[in-house]
């Protein structure tokens, strides 16, 4: 889920740091593919006379390929191939570098200036100038579609175009270190002002018919959510370089098992988001394909509502010490290994703290505090010492339609784990996302499931939005000492000092247990054995241009 955390400062330094510390999935074959350098298979494709055609399968869906109308993985995966950006990261890196620009930098605290390369053209022959860039961002703000990413431009005041190749972004607040990341985000594809509408969404068919593309590929055939054919665009003159294949076909599946069958049978070359845990586990044993993994920022956790959980502040028998004991007992009893191996077959791994491994300051605060394996005796002890009568009745809420089909199994197992000791009596209930998203804020759920996909890769994005007073969890957790540290670390320039603070914060929250972290996920793709160049990196963008076979 993406929450607008506009108030927080973001630091690009840590985004860069993540690029080198890839979170690798243990035990899966072909993990080394993530580190594939972009120059390794250069010769093969450029000298070969045989055109290379790659077929990719996905279960993600496109909402629309108009950048103003969608903010989801499926749509962005298509946009990444066909629209250029001012700033971009190259495959294997998360660092922002100019894409179709010569330079891009702050020219004053509130002015970010981009100098475009000269002579850029869209595939339809239209010139790509500063006017198109201004148009692309202005229409995002004008249209402000609810499904679109226009809110990412919260810091943009206006855009000036002193010349055909110069663009100046005037910002509201000074030295916004995250603005560069935003210029490579879903809000920032550059589109053709002669094809797109300035004040309303343009239909996919009009975009395709108008050939309004200037990225590595153009779309040469388009069947909404069924099939897209990408053909290499020779006029692309950006940092990603020319695509190493000639055409890519993207086939959409509704059911991951069909995607799995097709990659297994060799009908497609690459299967990306998302195969089920069973599919990945089965394919990992298959010699004809290889499983490729990359860092993922997704985490899963249980939230406790401090007001209405057992012994919570608004319950009849309010008692903060007993309430804490209940949370701690749960933390003692949960078996993350079993969740990871039995339910997710290793596609999600145990998460022992609040910041996932790979990010600066990530530690294992809960493992140290509550032990690596379930401890029923310790749980019983902490409850007894607080004077809690057992079994504790706990209503645990989960959601069936937002976090994948395994959620049901995950929570059934958690219920079982909490209950085997006889300390808990858990009532599980699931609610559809629409109601769920509302009710979790309205003090209806004593304890509930949530997941988080970061807006940007920084440790801070896993702490401040959650635990600072008034955070999006709205679970009435408040700890003044934690608040102070949270606010201090975001303005701390010294990296080591900041890391120490982040670790300290995690240890403090692990004691209070505002949430119990459970699992974190990775990016997984499965390719035919002969396919090379698939790169899953911390930018979370999969570029078709590097893939060969």
């Amino acid at each position: 889920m993406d929450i607008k955390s506009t108030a927080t400062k973001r630091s690009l330094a840590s985004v860069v740091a993540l690029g080198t510390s890839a979170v690798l999935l243990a035990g899966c074959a072909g993990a080394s593919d993530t580190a594939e350098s972009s120059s390794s298979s250069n010769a093969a494709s450029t000298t070969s006379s045989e055109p290379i055609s790659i077929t990719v399968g996905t279960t993600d869906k496109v909402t629309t390929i108009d950048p103003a109308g969608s903010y989801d993985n499926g749509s962005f995966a298509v946009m990444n191939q066909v629209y250029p950006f001012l700033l971009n990261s190259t495959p294997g890196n998360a660092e922002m570098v100019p894409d179709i620009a010569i330079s891009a930098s702050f020219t004053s605290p509130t002015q970010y200036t981009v100098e475009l390369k000269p002579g850029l053209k869209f595939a339809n022959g239209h010139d790509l100038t500063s006017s198109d860039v201004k148009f692309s961002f202005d229409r995002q703000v004008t249209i402000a579609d609810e499904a679109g990413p226009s809110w990412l431009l919260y810091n943009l005041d206006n855009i000036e175009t002193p010349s055909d190749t110069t663009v100046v972004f005037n910002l509201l607040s000074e030295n916004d270190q995250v603005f560069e990341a935003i210029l490579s985000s879903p809000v920032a594809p550059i589109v053709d002002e002669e094809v797109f509408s300035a004040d309303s969404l343009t239909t996919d068919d009009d975009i395709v018919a108008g050939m309004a593309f200037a990225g590595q590929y153009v779309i040469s055939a388009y069947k909404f959510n069924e099939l897209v054919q990408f053909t290499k665009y020779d006029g692309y003159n950006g940092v990603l370089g020319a695509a190493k294949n000639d055409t890519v076909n993207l086939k959409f599946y509704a059911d991951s098992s069909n995607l799995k069958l097709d990659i297994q049978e060799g009908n497609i070359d690459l299967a990306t988001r998302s195969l089920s845990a069973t599919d990945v586990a089965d394919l990992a044993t298959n010699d004809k394909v290889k499983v490729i993994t990359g860092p993922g920022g997704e985490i899963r956790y249980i939230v406790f509502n401090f007001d209405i959980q057992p012994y919570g502040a608004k319950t009849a028998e309010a008692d903060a010490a007993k309430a804490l004991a209940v949370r701690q007992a749960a933390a003692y009893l949960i078996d993350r290994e079993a969740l990871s191996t039995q339910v997710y077959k290793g596609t999600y791994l145990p998460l022992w703290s609040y910041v996932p491994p790979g990010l600066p300051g990530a530690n294992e605060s809960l493992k140290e505090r509550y032990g690596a394996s379930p401890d029923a005796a310790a749980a019983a002890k902490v409850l007894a010492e607080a004077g809690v009568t057992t079994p504790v009745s706990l209503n645990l809420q989960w959601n069936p339609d937002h976090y994948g089909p395994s959620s049901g199994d995950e929570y059934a197992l958690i219920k079982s784990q909490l209950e085997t000791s006889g300390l808990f009596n858990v009532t599980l209930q699931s609610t559809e996302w629409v109601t769920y998203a509302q009710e979790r804020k309205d003090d209806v759920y004593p304890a509930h499931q949530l997941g988080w996909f970061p807006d940007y890769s920084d440790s801070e994005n896993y702490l401040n939005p959650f635990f600072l007073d008034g955070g999006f969890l709205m679970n009435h957790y408040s700890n003044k000492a934690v608040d102070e540290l949270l606010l201090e670390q975001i303005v701390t320039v010294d990296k080591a000092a900041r890391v120490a603070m982040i670790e300290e914060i995690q240890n403090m929250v692990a004691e209070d247990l505002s949430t119990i972290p459970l699992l974190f996920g990775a990016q997984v793709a499965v390719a035919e054995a002969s396919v090379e160049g698939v790169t899953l990196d911390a930018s979370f963008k999969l570029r078709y241009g590097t893939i060969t076979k």
Partner: protein
Amino acid sequence: MAKQPGAGNSLLKYLAVRFTLIFPTVLILITMVFIVMRSIGDPITAALGGKLSNEELEIRIEAAGYNRPILVQYFEYLGQIFRGDFGSTLTTNKPITDLLGTYGMATLELAVYAILVALVVGIPLGMLAAKRRDTATDAGLRLFAILAYATPVFFVGLLLKLIFAVTFPILPVNGRASVNTELAITLMDNPTGIYLIDAIRLGEAEFIFDVISHAILPGLALGLLTAGIFLRLVRTNMIGTLNTEFIEAGRSRGVRESRLVTSHAFRPALIPIITVIGMQIAVLLSGAVLTETTFEWKGLGFQLAQYLNARDYVAVQGIVALLAVIVALTNFLVDVLVALVDPRVKF
């Protein structure tokens, strides 16, 4: 099938009455759809709640008019439908009538295959069962018919996957064509959307073979469901007609039993089949939701399931209303056909 006996003796009058009956039928169906879908709540909160703030939701709900009295909305909706406007999907912003154009052909193609399978399997086996009534053959055929009905199509889909995708991977279990064929059809001029026709127009044996091989399993799964119904129907009606005086007369004149079955008794037994094909349209459309979902056959039923999962109730309401109109129209056409064919129908 509300027939109006004695209302007048002309075929035209019957057809006129039958035609006017379409309107109340459609009205009732659309009203049902409206009531059911709106009792879920307003569509905007359903599709976008949790993504937007409460204030933004309020604004959008007001702009779309969902805060007005329900009767006002109802009559406005009827007005829209009357003008042929079934609304646009909330999540992908596509007109519902466009969906019919894009995906209706896929559903039609599957339905035609299914009906063909049903006729080819159901009628001869039904005749056989009638001829051999009360023997082991009859019992076996009837068991087959019941099994065809008793096995949910998604279970059939899973079984077929186990057999044809995992154990003997010879037939494709998902999609309407492989990537190359689909690309060729997408890129051709004025594709009909019916893949078999398009593949034949492309003239490449490889494409035709590919399209047919993809259609076999879904066509069989949906077709056998209906074949069971046809089998029982033909059997019952044949037994009925074989006992009539007309056949008895033939029998006494020494006409061979096999000839009685194939020629004399067959035609009268066909009429209920035509009626049932019409009534099966609703069943087929219902079955198509599950069949298309199971085999990823991207037709209207598949889309409906996708929009249901996205909780896009404007799209669901639109598609269902559109299907209701189609069902009502088909039923009318079937009644007309029966009236023209069946000498027993009195006007």
